């Protein structure tokens, strides 16, 4: 069962078009909702005009003052309003909601509304935010800053053979799940029910209880089939659910609110743009003695998840290396752009891009190969990370690197390219990225969450897994069923995953942070084992048992004792300590590790860059499902190729101007190579069946591997992403000048 590519649980429903996504879901008498938004980045709302020619009496209209409870989308700091009341802080900020049964009329009505705003000077870049010419958040525009220190960096510079500096920048990136965001809400005498596309049913639940000021049991949140999330459906669905819920509450009718692509692109969160500075002290033999890293991100107009993104990014900034002296300063700034938010990788793709570009720069300064510098510094069991976390398990980075070099035929191909490149306008090159990704919530996060998941068995012996962890394409329905079926020694089709419905499943925490398989998987495994134990203790099940013996044992148990259910609550592995204040200690229960190698071609005439080959080697503990696991890596790499080369968010006055799939370009099947994936298994003692988290790891590697390959091909440094042809042309011209 474990390590076998069983069929995806919901595969058939998806292949035949029968799976129900939010826009496929309808209720009798349903109205449609739209959101009217701010067209200026910052200012005071002075009036709202309802234009002529629209039968306004037929419409349900909701403004901030209609909100029965607190006007905020509750998350970390509760600073983001559900609807802007008197002040707007970014373009496309929701101000007013409309509902009507006729969607054509609704669109006309939306255009007939004019929001009058007295504009104020807006802060549209990190530089102007830092300069504090306008204070738009708190007293200094800083959402959060962290300092991570190890050893004594100030004393290291005088001992260094080399001091290497670099500055790197990364752009915003859109998650671009194929299914846009949407929700349906229905008010009844018992309360509110919301259905939709989401990663975190209990985040939505929490936001709605605060918005309405109601008790928990009056709000019910149900996840529908979700067409991709990648973090983009972590926090923003709470906003849309709140809007749909308010319209339903005011109209007394069910309301559907689904964004079209353009609205989804302009209004919802993106990956945080970042600037990272490195200053490194190194010895002649390649050993890194000290790293000073400055990491700054643009959080947008409200805090949302920014402090947590900053923290994960900072913790990952020193990568898979041992370094005795480290100082990492990190700062998240407020600007008047739509809030940036969760996206697969959560800060780590930014800092690891910078680090892995910088490793190549260090190698070149010292005169060593990129491979040698990395090997010289790989962290090993017993050594400590920048936060002082001692690595307790074997680290197989050398093995991963060896395998990646071999599978990519690195040395032979690189020598061939160095001979061929001078005679060709199309230059080829290869680049390495070595990295790690912490699985589960950072620091004490999992302890605070105290997730619960359960298993319930029917009289026929069918097993239902109860968790708020959602299937969004990653395959959690299948892997969780595999874990439970394996624990109970049952066939896979005897195990099903309950619909994530807050009225029926416990709070297992959000479906984020590469935590579903590792953390929730462990909970459902232990809940399943408790069921087995209960049956055994009741004397109804022997040591070894057949499927039919299990079924009759369940039937007997339920007849005698009533429902057969078991819940498991998260318990941190022993010895895990974290200091929130100092950012010191065990940042993660464990890390997944990887080495990626990219081969690119750069046409120096057109500046077109192609990824010709891509090898991804990783250690994610034990692989539960080889096809789904490889699918996670391949998808993450493709998304990383987009991050590196194609996906440019063009900001104008704080708004994404290229808000269409025609001009925000994600990779197609002809832009991606046959991504080659290899696993080195190293079972993790606290993971279910030895598994670790996997989902985010693959997005950390492609950008640095590809940009290192570009440098290898063209011979000079590119320190930003995305490397669009026009940006590369400029860089080449500056190089030649």
């Amino acid at each position: 069962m474990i390590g076998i590519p069983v069929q995806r649980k919901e595969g058939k429903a998806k292949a035949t078009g029968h799976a129900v996504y939010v826009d496929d879901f309808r209720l009798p008498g349903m109205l449609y909702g739209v959101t009217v938004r701010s067209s200026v980045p910052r200012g005071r709302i002075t009036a709202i005009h309802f234009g002529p020619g629209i039968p306004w009496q037929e419409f349900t209209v909701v403004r901030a003052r209609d909100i029965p409870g607190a006007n905020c989308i509750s998350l970390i700091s509760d600073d983001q309003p559900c609807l802007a009341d008197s002040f707007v802080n970014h373009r496309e900020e929701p101000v007013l909601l409309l509902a009507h049964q006729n969607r054509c009329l609704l669109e006309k009505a939306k255009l007939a509304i004019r929001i009058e705003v007295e504009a104020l000077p807006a802060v549209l870049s990190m530089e102007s935010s830092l300069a504090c010419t306008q204070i738009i958040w708190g007293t200094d525009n800083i959402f959060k800053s962290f300092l991570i220190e190890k050893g004594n960096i100030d004393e290291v510079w005088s001992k260094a053979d080399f001091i290497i500096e670099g500055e790197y920048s990364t752009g915003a990136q859109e998650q671009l799940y194929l299914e846009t965001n949407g929700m349906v809400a229905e008010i009844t005498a018992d309360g509110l029910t919301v259905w939709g596309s989401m990663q975190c049913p209990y985040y939505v639940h929490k936001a709605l209880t605060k918005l309405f000021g109601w008790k928990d049991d009056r709000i019910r949140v149900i996840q529908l089939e979700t067409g991709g999330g990648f973090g983009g459906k972590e926090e923003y669905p709470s906003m849309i659910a709140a809007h749909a819920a308010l319209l339903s509450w005011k109209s007394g009718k069910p309301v559907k609110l689904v964004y079209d692509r353009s609205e989804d692109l302009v209004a919802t969160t993106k990956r945080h743009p970042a600037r990272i500075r490195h200053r490194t002290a190194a010895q002649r033999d390649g050993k890194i003695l000290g790293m000073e890293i400055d990491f700054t991100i643009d959080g947008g107009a409200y805090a949302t998840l920014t402090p947590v993104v900053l923290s994960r990014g900072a913790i990952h900034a020193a990568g898979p290396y041992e370094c005795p002296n480290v100082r990492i300063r990190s700062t998240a700034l407020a600007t008047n752009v739509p809030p940036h938010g969760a996206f697969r990788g959560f800060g780590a793709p930014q800092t690891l891009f910078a680090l892995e570009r910088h490793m190549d720069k260090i190698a070149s300064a010292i005169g060593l190969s990129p491979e040698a510098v990395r090997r010289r510094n790989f962290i090993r069991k017993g050594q400590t990370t920048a936060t002082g976390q001692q690595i307790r398990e074997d680290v197989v980075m050398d093995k991963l690197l060896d395998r990646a070099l071999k599978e990519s035929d690195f040395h032979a191909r690189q020598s061939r390219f160095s001979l061929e490149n001078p005679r060709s306008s199309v230059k080829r090159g290869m680049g390495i990225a070595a990295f790690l990704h912490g699985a589960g919530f950072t620091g004490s996060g999992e302890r605070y969450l105290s997730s619960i998941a359960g298993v319930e068995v029917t009289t026929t012996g069918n097993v239902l897994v109860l968790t708020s962890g959602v299937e969004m394409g990653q395959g959690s329905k299948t892997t969780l069923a595999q874990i439970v079926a394996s624990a109970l020694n049952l066939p896979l089709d005897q195990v099903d995953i309950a619909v994530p419905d807050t009225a029926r499943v416990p709070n297992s925490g959000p479906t984020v942070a590469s935590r579903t398989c590792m953390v929730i998987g462990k909970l459902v495994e232990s809940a399943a084992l408790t069921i087995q134990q209960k049956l055994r203790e009741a004397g109804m099940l022997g040591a070894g048992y057949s499927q039919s013996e299990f079924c009759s044992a369940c039937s007997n148990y339920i007849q005698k004792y009533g429902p057969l259910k078991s819940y498991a609550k998260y318990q941190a592995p022993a010895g895990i300590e974290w200091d929130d204040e100092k950012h010191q200690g065990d940042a993660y229960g464990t890390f997944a590790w990887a080495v990626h190698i990219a081969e690119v071609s750069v046409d120096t005439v057109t500046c077109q860059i192609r990824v010709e080959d891509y090898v991804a080697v990783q250690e994610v503990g034990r692989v539960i499902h080889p096809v789904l696991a490889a699918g996670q890596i391949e998808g993450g790499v493709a998304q990383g190729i987009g991050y590196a080369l194609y996906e440019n968010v063009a900001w104008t006055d704080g708004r994404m101007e290229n808000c269409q799939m025609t001009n925000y370009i994600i990779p197609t099947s002809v832009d991606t190579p046959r991504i080659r994936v290899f696993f080195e298994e190293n079972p993790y003692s606290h993971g279910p069946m030895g598994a670790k988290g996997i989902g985010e790891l693959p997005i950390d590697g492609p950008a640095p591997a590809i940009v290192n390959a570009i440098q290898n091909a063209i011979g000079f440094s590119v320190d930003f992403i995305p490397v669009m042809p026009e940006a590369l042309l400029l860089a080449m011209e500056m190089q030649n000048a």
Partner: protein
Amino acid sequence: MPKQQVQLRVNGVGYNLNVWPMERLLDVLRHELQLTGTKDGCGEGECGACLVMLNGNLVNSCLVPILQADGAEVTTIEGAAADRDIARIQTAFIEHGGIQCGFCTPGMVMSALDLLKKNPRPSEMEVRAGLAGCLCRCTGYVRICESVLKASQILQEPRSQE
């Protein structure tokens, strides 16, 4: 402009529909006929989630004004179930990891069906070119291509008495 009558044959069933002339074929399929297997991913013909067969040609139904489809024969993912070939393509997608979130899947399957009818033994590069009108954000296309290549092999095999 007032509503107009159009005739459509969808998945073998005839319909007389009273529609707004500028409605898209996609809207009529999804809202009037409740054939929601065809998806709306971008509304501008970029993503391919809304692919259907219109008189035997693969089209993005978000780019077809309904009047243009008057009198036409339309096959959607739901109707394609009658086609033995498509069932095999769907099985290949299910078995070889060609599906993750599933939102692009109906379009991908329609696209694969069209490709394999025109080119029963495509190379990997031909599959990649053939599917380039469909965007997927989950899979990196590796296993979608593999699913289509596997389907092409299966479709070549003599059929058993199913």
